[in-house]
């Protein structure tokens, strides 16, 4: 039962990763007892499970994920939201308006209009139907201020870091509030534009260097240097 790659080695779709007894995890597939990569990424394995941490992938909705989306349509029963996924998401009016909801009397565009950005949570999704959202949790709802940064959705875990170490470090260093959407959109709101600029810079650095190690330290260092006004090379 051989393994053909070491941990954290870069692979491309079609690369043979393992044979026989192994189990195919994320971004891999098994065919005729052989496990191949199905995306470009870094190999990882635990016990018998081989998987690839994708470097390039789009967001696929997952129940309980917090996402940031844009309202693209107001319908009689709710809103259609673009959450940067293969499918548009639905947000039902009954979820927002105090019940009982009457389509005749409620003015839905006054709550969320086309183009509004919202923070929401996925409550249901199974690929046969469009994902369903809710805003009935603290911290969810319309975005009033801040800056949005878009990064590849697969790199969100890297932005969060182990037990949130990365994101809490950026919050501490820049004094910005950061809301992470699992779909690759990140909301930053700081006291000054300079604080926000620093946070955006840190996020872009993470996206670019996500496949390398020791990243938290390098980002911390970069932020400290930038704050002192020293030219970073």
């Amino acid at each position, binding site marked *: 039962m051989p393994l053909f790659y070491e941990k954290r080695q*870069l692979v*491309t*779709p*079609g*690369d*043979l990763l393992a044979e026989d007894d192994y189990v195919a995890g994320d*971004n891999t*597939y098994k*065919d005729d007892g052989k496990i*191949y990569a*199905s*995306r*470009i990424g870094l190999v990882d394995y635990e016990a018998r499970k081989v998987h690839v941490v*994708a*470097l*390039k*992938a*789009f967001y696929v909705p997952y129940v309980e994920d917090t996402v940031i989306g844009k309202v693209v349509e107001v319908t009689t029963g709710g809103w259609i939201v673009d959450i940067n996924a*293969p*499918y*548009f998401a639905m947000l039902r009016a009954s979820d927002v308006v105090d019940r009982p909801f009457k389509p005749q009397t409620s003015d839905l565009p006054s709550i969320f209009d086309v183009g509004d950005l919202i923070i929401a949570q996925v409550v249901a999704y199974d*690929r*046969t139907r469009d994902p369903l959202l809710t805003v009935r949790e603290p911290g969810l709802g319309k975005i009033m201020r801040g800056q949005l940064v878009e990064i*590849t959705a*697969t790199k969100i875990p890297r932005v969060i870091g182990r037990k949130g170490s990365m994101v809490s470090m950026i919050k501490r260093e820049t004094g910005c509030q950061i809301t992470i959407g699992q779909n690759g959109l990140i909301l930053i709101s700081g006291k000054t534009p300079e604080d926000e600029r620093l946070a955006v810079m840190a996020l872009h650095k993470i996206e*670019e*260097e996500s*496949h*390398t190690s020791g990243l938290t330290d390098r980002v911390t260092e970069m932020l400290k240097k930038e704050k002192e006004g020293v030219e970073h090379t």
Partner: protein
Amino acid sequence: MLNIPKRKTEKKRLNVLQKKPEKLIDKDDMRLDGRKLNELRPTKIEVGVLGNADGSAYIEQGKNKILAAVYGPKEVHPRHLARPDRAVLRCRYHMAPFSVDERKSPAPSRREVELSKVIREALEPSIFVEYYPRTSIDIFIEVLQADGGTRCAGITTASLALADAGIPMRDLVAACASGKVDGHLVLDLMDVEDKAGEADVPLALMPNLNAVTLLQMDGSLTIEEFEKAVNLALDGCKQLYTLQKEALKSKYVAVKEALDE
């Protein structure tokens, strides 16, 4: 008895001034551009060249210059084309008006419509279309400069654009043609060889799975010649595959190397 036409399908001469050279291969088995019989054209591939598409790639293979862009998976428009059990793959192969030496009408020609279908069918087996039902994956292949073998170069490029878009794939698809020119079997025909030669055999391959996804032939070859031509093309595909992998990895490798220094 099967009536096999002796001549290749007549390919339109785009430039009247461009005469067929007397000899396409000299006595030292050297081709017009100085290549050996089994040599690919010099090939340069780049991935992620377009900012607005979800995935993109660019190839320069000899004088060929081809861009490929991929969008999706996303909602299908028009809606009725959506399939409940899988993603639909749509492909447009298009030659820019300036891609050949006499202006080509930008409207899709019969040939381009056919190649779009052929390319789509060569790429489809490599994609897990069943993972994202009710969506579409759109592929655009734009030939900026053509010099023979654009369908193969188009497949090679589009496959990289798909990988760059993060679409789950069984394998990359590499494609390459072989053929018969002046009685010799040669690899990777350029325009003159394609038009003046006796036959060409475009072939697309998923190298790790050892599966052929496209095999065509234009012209006539004996069974032995055909077998040799297929093996030659398979070899060319494998060479291109290593270039594809390098191109796909290069961006990440560069970042890592810069940090290691």
